[in-house]
């Protein structure tokens, strides 16, 4: 009889402890989110954007392993593989958000998630409209999908180039050689460049498409094709313009153009292209892209409707200029561009 109060107290303590544990578990289950990140292929911009995206997520309170279950899928540019990996992952557990990097993964996820409640966020996509992801840029209303455009307006790029060249080609039409693969984004890019060129007098793109072979295995073949294209166009163009897409992202292609042609490359696909001798490159800033994508992801995870966020380009850009190339071309870089490039002015050409 004497132990009854002690037993009652013990039971009460146990009950309280159990309730407390349940509440913690409930909170944890409530706060823990699941994100599936699909990277199209392991190229530099994809990897950089994914890394900065994850870093900013952590800074905004979503840490993988604590309140975030982040699943990263890498299909290495293979569409079928990408579809299979994403479906399998979704089958294993519903995701609060599917994030895709680059065009192919974005198209696969968009296809798989159509008709589901799972929202999608994409980045490193240079032409989401052309890729069929959204109807238009800068507008809302698309269902459960939003993202950041990994591209600078082509006309802006051309205008930037013309400022650098100045009066160097005043009078004569400027011919820009463009060798691109049949990779969808590359095709879209070439198309948009052609349209943009129409806005400028005395400027034309001289395009040459080669078949796309998935990198990295198909790269030598594409380089061979590119070598042929250089030979064909070398006398017909004044400068080279590197294409976007898997081919343009490769250093080998930049070296190929530099070594096989007498014409300088005036626009590189990425900053490495500038180091290797391209006169100019402008691209959305990786960190800004990752941060802005992370902000969208957090908003969606916390209940916002993805379709309410219009698809826009990143607000910060990186400009790279190769000073050695400029000097060789007899170009005086305007001061504002030199300042804009900042640390991305390279005084020599990398081997």
């Amino acid at each position, binding site marked *: 009889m004497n132990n009854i109060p002690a037993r009652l107290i013990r039971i009460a303590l146990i009950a309280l402890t159990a309730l407390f544990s349940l509440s913690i578990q409930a909170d944890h289950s409530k706060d823990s989110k699941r994100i599936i990140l699909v990277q199209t292929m392991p190229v530099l911009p994809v990897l950089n954007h994914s890394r900065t995206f994850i870093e900013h997520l952590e800074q905004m309170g979503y840490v993988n392993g604590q309140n975030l279950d982040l699943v990263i899928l890498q299909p290495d540019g293979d569409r079928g593989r990408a579809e299979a990996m994403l479906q399998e992952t979704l089958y294993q557990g519903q995701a609060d958000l599917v994030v895709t990097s680059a065009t192919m993964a974005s198209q696969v996820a968009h296809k798989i998630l159509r008709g589901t409640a799972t929202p999608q966020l994409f980045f490193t996509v240079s032409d989401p409209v052309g890729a069929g992801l959204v109807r238009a840029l800068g507008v809302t209303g698309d269902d459960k999908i939003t993202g950041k455009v990994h591209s600078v307006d082509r006309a802006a790029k051309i205008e930037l180039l013309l400022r650098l060249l100045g009066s160097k080609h005043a009078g004569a039409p400027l011919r820009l050689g463009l060798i691109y693969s049949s990779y969808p984004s590359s095709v879209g890019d070439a198309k948009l460049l052609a349209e943009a060129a129409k806005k400028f007098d005395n400027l034309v793109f001289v395009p040459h498409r080669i078949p796309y072979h998935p990198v990295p295995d198909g790269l030598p073949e594409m380089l061979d094709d590119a070598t042929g294209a250089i030979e064909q166009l070398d006398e017909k163009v004044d400068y080279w313009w590197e294409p976007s897409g898997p081919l343009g992202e490769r250093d080998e292609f930049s070296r190929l153009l530099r070594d096989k042609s007498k014409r300088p490359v005036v626009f590189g696909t990425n900053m490495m292209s500038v180091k290797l001798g391209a006169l100019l490159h402008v691209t959305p800033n990786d960190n800004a892209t990752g941060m802005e994508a992370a902000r969208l992801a957090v908003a969606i995870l916390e209940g916002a409707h993805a379709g309410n966020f219009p698809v826009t380009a990143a607000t910060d850009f990186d400009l790279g200029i190769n*000073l050695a190339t400029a*000097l060789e071309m*007899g170009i*005086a*870089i*305007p*001061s*504002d561009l*030199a*300042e804009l490039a900042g640390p991305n*002015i390279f*005084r020599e050409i990398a081997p």
Partner: protein
Amino acid sequence: MTLRGKLITIILPLLLISIMGLGTWHYHTATIGVERATRLYLDTVLTTYIESELERRQQLLISLGVAHIHSFQEQYQQEAVETARRIAAGQNGDFIILDEEGRAVVITGPLDRPQTRNWIDRPEFRSSLPTHFGTLELPSGNTSKGLLLLNHHYSPWKWQVIFAIDNSEYLQDLGDIRDSTLLIAGLLAIITVFLIYTFSKRMLLLPIEILRRSASRIARREQVSNIPLESGDELGELARNMEVMATEIQNAQAILEERVVERTEELADKNRLFKVIGNLQAQFIREPKPTVMFDRLLLDIIDLTGSEFGFIGDVLLDDNNQPYLKCYAFTNIAWNDETRRFYEENRKTGFVFTDLDNLFGHVILDRESIITNSPASDPRSKGLPKGHPPINSFLGIPIFYGEKLVGEIGLANREEGFTQELLNFIQPIVDTCGQIIVARWERESRHRAEDELSSTRNYLHNIIELMPSILVGIGTEREVTQWNIGAEEFSGISEESALGQQLEDVLPIMKGYSRLIAETIQQQQPRVIERISHINGSEQHQLEGVIYPLGDTAAGAVIRIDNITEKVRLESLMIQTEKMMSVGGLAAGMAHELNNPLGGILQGLQNIERRLSPDLPKNLETAREIGLDLEKVRTYFEQRGISNFLSGITDSGKRAADIVKNMLMFSRKPDAIKRDESLNEIVEQALALANVDYDFKKKYDFRNIRIKRQFDTLMPEVPCIASEIQQVLLNLFRNAAQALSYADTESPTITISTLIQDDHACIEIEDNGPGMQEEVLDHIFEPFFTTREVGSGTGLGLSVSFFIIQEEHNGTIRAESKPGEGAKFIIELPLPEV
């Protein structure tokens, strides 16, 4: 002036002055501000341009490592020029940039005209530029009068960068500020005046007018229950307060009127009380007699308290230091003949009560008031004498002056009985009474002291007045404050005339003593005035004085002057006497010593003459034995004059013997006995002797001198030695005769008078001879003093006379004489005692 007028008078000028001052200050501040802002603007634009466009590009060239590359430099300078154009287009102002050779790299705005460009390209333009900030006049033909510019040299590119604005714009700004300031100030003044007036009228003046009317009604003690002022501000609160105040005033007035009635009654009592006190004080001043004074007071207190009777008296101490009561005011309650007699006997001097073992006595013994409304049952009461009017109530009040019990007031038979309140009410009278009693005592004491002082003063006055001395009181300025009879007699100036006059004016002998008087007053030490000679008519007086300070430097001094002529004479006489006595003693000794050898000389001469005489047988026998003829010896003596020599020695010896004889007179007491003699007869006998004292050697003949006798025939006989008085008179007659003879006086006369003066018999011998100098007069009684030639007198005559009169007869002998006026010798002999 109304409140409105005051408001306008005060506020309007202040407002206008404030707005004008504010406007002036604003214009001044704005002018400075515009200049600073213009300069700051120029500096900001130019500095920003240089730092952001020139220096930035230069740093970029350096950081890119292309500063030496002409294309880059040209590109960047061109960019800077374009920037300058854009800035000039967007800003108010224009750039002029000169290269190192002074050529214009760029000129923006309206200055970019050929004419201006040529002017700028000239070297004079560069030299006329201000170092940093300043103005520059434009050449004629420009619409603008000049430029306000800022000049900066950018050394990396060797550019002279000038940013300028049109000076007329700057001046236009100042004009605009001035005009706008005036306009705003004017509008502000009008609006403010309007607002203040409107506000004051609506918010202040009208409510104040309402309050004023209400206050007037309250002042007229009208009922004011609702003031038509409903504002919620302080005036509205004041209106509510005034309503409350009006009600309170009404209430307070009613209470006040009630209290006024009460206070009036109290004041009436107080007035009666103060009137009693006033009467007491007035009575004390008018009539100090305690019986009169306290009679009136007692009547007043009885009336004031409603008592039937009472008493007032002093509490005094007897010889045994026991207190007793002396009543100066006592209600007459006598009930039989004995008490009536007692009352009448004492009413003017006071009733003395030494037995204090009763009710009123215990007031004194216990030194506290007794209030009893049943005295018969009070243990301190010892009952009443038979027939004494009944006492139903009693109030005994001790009268204190400080701690000292000085009197008592007793009251009896008040209808409503005595109370502590009544005692408190009349306490001021009791206190005043104590002061009056003590004041009366002091006044009586003072009167006694004043009487004593007056007596003393009169006594002293009489002493001062009757003193033979001259007593003069003077102030610090030597004005006369006291003038006694002696002074009146001496100066012939009455006291009334002398008082207030300067001392020297009324007492000329004090001339020359002002410094001594001042020192006396200053040092508070008495000073002696040595002998002063004063000639009054034909008489010369010797005066002596003392100046006494009056004990305070502000009080002055008293001068006492004594006529010491007689004193001086007596002193002189005493000195003479002493001198004579000493000389007398000496002469006596000398006479004794000289008498023996002189006797031997005269005896020897007599023996020589006798032994030379042939008449003596012994002489002849001896001569024969030795064979000497005495006749021849005598003849020889005669022929050789030896006899004359011997005769001369004999005469000299006799003369010396006379001198010695006279000298012995000084020391030798006369053997004769004084008898009562008639001085007149003695004088006659002396005159008879003088008549026979004819001597050719003495060269005078007394018989040729006229003798005038002025004898007092009633003169009593005087105790004296007649022979000695005769000797004195003979001496004086001889001296007078000699003087008359030597002076060959015409009608020589000797006047001899006898007379009674005071208690002396006097003999005066006066001649009309040549008289004597004062120096001679002072020494004539000295032994061996003579004015005659040597050998004509011994110089002892007057000395012996002096000795006879002074020593032998206790009289006096003195001489009075002046040169050319004869001499007078006065002998005074004491009259016989009655």
